[in-house]
């Protein structure tokens, strides 16, 4: 179990402010956020490599805030694997065992499990990226840490290795029941590996919750844009409708002061003909741009000066045969319109997706 209470870290040029975080025993938790959000810094504070100015860090109920890293029993796997280049695979794996007072895990089984048996005598620089990460995993697990931190463990790998290692981490977590705290900037990775997530931005945690919840019900404009809700507009909310410019949209208002709306592009339907007797919202706009993204197309539609993004699978697009410059009709179901409390457009996350 990891518990971070009121943590503040102040470094020249960057601060982590008032971080609250709880990772239950055996849970897999993902810290998400763009580059520079402070995710790695938070990991390093938990490990004990950077000084903490305020707050407490507890591992399995034990206050480790003042302890040096070697007495915290926290394992780490870095993006760049950080294997000791002067030692071979086996020497790397057993490196920490001499310091281990408690019962050691079955090393033989661990090596077998990670498929490292044939690599034991190899030099580090002769390994592939995926092999290096497996050795780094084995090295940290060989000392039976209380928790395991993963700092973007998949980012540096080729796509095919990435899936293998992702599956391996998943099954390792399921089998060993170790508490996992991972840092990633990839929502899909978090979705696959973690049960809960925290979205970090500018050294603060914006939202914590089950991955599904954060994905489907973002609370802030930043989180909405981070989870891919590209249609993020300031709006005036009046009862069960949202007004953007001159357009009124029906939505579901649970009550509260909302200032913007967020809609996933995949929830925006696009048609050449207006649909009659429509239950939801229909917007009339001019198709500005179609960007071919391979399996799907990114479509930009101008509705009264507001740029709406829609995603359509290429097949649908071919069938409806819309072209740039045409008048099109967008359909949006009221339940797909998410109401957001803040509306600071400048703070949103610009994804390349």
């Amino acid at each position, binding site marked *: 179990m990891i518990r971070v209470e009121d943590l503040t870290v102040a470094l020249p040029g960057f601060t982590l402010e008032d971080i609250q975080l709880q990772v239950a025993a055996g849970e897999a938790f993902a810290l998400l956020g763009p580059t520079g959000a402070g995710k790695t810094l938070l990991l390093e504070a938990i490990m004990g*490599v950077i000084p903490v100015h305020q707050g407490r860090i507890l591992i399995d109920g034990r206050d480790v805030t003042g302890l040096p890293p070697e007495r915290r029993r926290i394992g780490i796997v870095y993006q760049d694997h950080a294997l*000791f280049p*002067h030692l071979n695979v086996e020497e790397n794996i057993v*490196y*920490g065992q001499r310091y281990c007072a408690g019962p050691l895990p079955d090393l033989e089984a661990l090596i077998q499990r990670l498929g490292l048996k044939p690599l034991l005598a190899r030099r580090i620089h002769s390994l592939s990226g995926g092999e290096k990460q497996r050795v780094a995993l084995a090295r940290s697990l060989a000392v039976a840490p209380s928790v395991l931190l993963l700092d973007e463990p998949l980012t540096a790998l080729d796509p095919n290795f990435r899936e293998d290692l992702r599956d391996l981490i998943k099954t390792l977590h399921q089998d060993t029941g170790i508490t996992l705290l991972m840092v990633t900037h990839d929502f899909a990775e978090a979705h696959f590996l973690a049960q809960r997530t925290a979205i970090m931005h500018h050294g603060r945690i914006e939202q914590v919750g089950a991955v599904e919840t954060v994905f489907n019900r973002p609370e802030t404009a930043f989180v909405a844009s981070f989870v891919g809700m590209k249609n993020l507009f300031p709006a005036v909310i009046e009862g069960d409708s949202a007004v953007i410019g001159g357009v009124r949209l029906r939505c579901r208002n649970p009550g509260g002061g909302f200032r913007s709306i967020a809609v996933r592009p995949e929830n925006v339907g696009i048609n050449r003909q207006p649909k009659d007797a429509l239950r939801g919202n229909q917007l009339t706009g001019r198709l500005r741009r179609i960007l071919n993204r391979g399996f799907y197309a990114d479509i930009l539609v101008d509705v009264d000066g507001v740029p709406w993004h829609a995603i359509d699978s290429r097949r649908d697009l071919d069938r409806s045969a819309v072209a740039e410059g045409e008048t099109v009709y967008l359909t949006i179901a009221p339940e797909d319109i998410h109401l957001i409390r803040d509306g600071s457009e400048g703070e949103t996350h610009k994804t390349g997706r």
Partner: protein
Amino acid sequence: MNASLHNSTQKTGGRLAMDPFWGLALAATTVITAFILLPLVEMVVQPSLQDLVDSWRDPDVLRAIGMSLYTAGAAALISLIFGTPFAYLLARKSFPGKRLVESVVDLPIMIPHPVVGIALLSLAGRHHWFGRILEAFNIQIMGTVTGIVSVLTFVGLPFYINAVKTGFESIPPRLETVSRSLGASFSATFVRVTFPLAWRSMLVGLIMCMARAVSEFGAVVIVAYHPMVASVMIYERFTAYGLKYSQPVAVGLILVCLVFFLLLRWVSPRKASVL
């Protein structure tokens, strides 16, 4: 230079005319290489074999070369002991005034050598509080081995610290972090991770520091004419007896420096093999 020449002809397939710059560069290379090698070669071949053998049988010459090596070695050892933790601090931590401290380390490289000797002597003089402390401990600077080692450490230390600092900087701090997370203490991490990855640059630093110390003359001659080191002896023989008598000693010193140079080429990291 040769590699660039080769590249440029390859890129153009050897058919296009070479830029006149490469001709100029080739000429410059020839001139510089000759400028360095000619005087050295001349000096080594000019004394007859008999002269060389005679002077190397001379106990004074042997003692002077031995004194050079002994004092330079002592300076390198002191640099190792004090310079290593200092270099680690500079490589790993940032603190206010770090740039200033780094410039201070480099100062001995810039200061004219006799000035180094004069500065140390004035500090150790009887009129200075530091000199009185030294006197209380019965430590003499003027005309002693202690004095020679002091100035040699002064001029050699920057070379050791800079080489080792670069070595430490090339080791990713994450390796040390991982080692700590696996249960190794700070000192165990230094012994098992940092040192095995840094010893080459420490050795390079030692050799550079020692080579610099062996070649020192200006600072030594101010602080201690006697006991005589090789560089002072060469100067003495030159002024007292002329070129011919100073040459055999100089050849001996060149050979010693050559050994250092070869050692340095041999242990220098060929490429960054840390990651």
